[in-house]
């Protein structure tokens, strides 16, 4: 729910366990309490997509029996698999552009046991085209960071379980060429297209590929996106890494993002998402401002975490 600073302070003071997203000018005014938060001025609300620096998106995590928070840098972020609750949920927020995001993005797919523990989160950002501060907050300690991840560990009752899932409106065309990469990279020069080595930037230019469409990899039926950040003359920079040994194709164009989301949501069996994180690229390219995506509300993110870092996706969790 999108609420005022005063209402948020009241909730914090009541002792509720909270996840909070909003502009830094509001987050920095919040008192200590049982919360973590991150910066973004973009949200998907019941009324549709909205950009505001005057309200905070607050989610009560009242399903948890116990909570603790922590912060990590790039050298110890994967301690999350050791420090989480046995039956719980790990909620993670990292600041865009930080080394900890880069480390997490590149290495999380290979981290032992990560997939054994429901892990969800988002990358905090700021209004595009501004120098607004990007920060993440640990409300328990009262500390905030632009170079560390904050984590909330939530312990669930024995009869409950957390499910992390995503809605991806992009799909590949299996007749398109397969693109592979020789390393886990955030910045790519060369790739192989159907086995033949080419310059990735030249290939994109020659094929007139719409770089608003992500690269899509089929993970056993779950499609994982990697989005293009900038297409230079010789190098392609990505928002999440491509991985060695994974087969990618460019996604097919999407006509209307809201219609696609509605179709995917209709076919899901999700009960009630607690909170969802929808990518800023969907917000921008899909023109989501003012348009509704039923029940999947939450902050608009600058990268989504569903175990690993993914892009251009709506990530959510539910407790059942």
């Amino acid at each position, binding site marked *: 729910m999108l609420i005022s600073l005063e209402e948020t302070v009241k909730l914090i003071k009541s002792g509720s366990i909270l996840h909070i997203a909003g502009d830094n000018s509001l987050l920095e005014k919040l008192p200590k309490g049982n919360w973590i938060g991150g910066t973004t001025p973009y949200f998907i609300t019941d009324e549709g997509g909205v950009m505001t620096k005057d309200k905070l998106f607050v989610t009560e995590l009242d399903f948890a029996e116990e909570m603790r928070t922590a912060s990590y840098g790039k050298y110890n972020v994967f301690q999350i698999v050791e420090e989480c609750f046995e039956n719980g949920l790990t909620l993670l927020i990292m600041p865009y552009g930080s080394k900890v995001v880069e480390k997490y993005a590149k290495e999380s797919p290979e981290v032992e046991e990560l*997939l054994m523990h429901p892990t969800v989160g988002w990358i905090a950002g700021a209004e595009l085209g501004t120098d607004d501060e990007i920060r993440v907050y640990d409300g328990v300690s009262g500390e905030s960071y632009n170079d560390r991840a904050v984590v909330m560990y939530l312990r669930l009752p024995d009869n409950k379980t957390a499910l992390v899932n995503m809605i991806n409106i992009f799909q590949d065309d299996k007749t398109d060429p397969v693109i592979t990469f020789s390393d886990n990279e955030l910045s790519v020069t060369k790739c192989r297209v159907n086995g033949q080595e080419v310059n990735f930037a030249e290939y994109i230019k020659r094929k007139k590929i719409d770089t608003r469409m992500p690269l899509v990899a089929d993970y056993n039926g779950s499609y994982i996106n990697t989005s293009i950040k900038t297409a230079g003359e010789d190098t392609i920079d990505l928002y999440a890494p491509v991985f060695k040994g994974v087969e990618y194709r460019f996604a097919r164009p999407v006509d209307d993002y809201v219609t696609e989301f509605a179709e995917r949501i209709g076919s899901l069996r999700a009960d009630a998402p607690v909170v969802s994180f929808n990518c800023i690229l969907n917000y921008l390219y899909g023109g989501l401002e003012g348009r509704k995506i039923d029940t999947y509300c939450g902050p608009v993110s600058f990268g989504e975490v569903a175990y690993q870092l993914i892009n251009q996706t709506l990530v959510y969790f539910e407790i059942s």
Partner: protein
Amino acid sequence: MTEKVRDNIKKILLGQLEYRSSNLALNMLITKLKRKIQSDPGSMDQCMKEIAEFSEKSPIIAKVDFANIAAL
């Protein structure tokens, strides 16, 4: 985990059977283990241990998926 489930999971990891879960974590795990076996065919036992560990830590998911896998 029954023998049937074990056998079918081995076939899935070797690409001899196809199974797509509705659970994101299991799909990611299957993908990761398939790649591991492709690069190191001798790692099947280690991969099966990871599957067993996943089922212990996610019993509700494993119950549904293992029933489906047994029926393949």
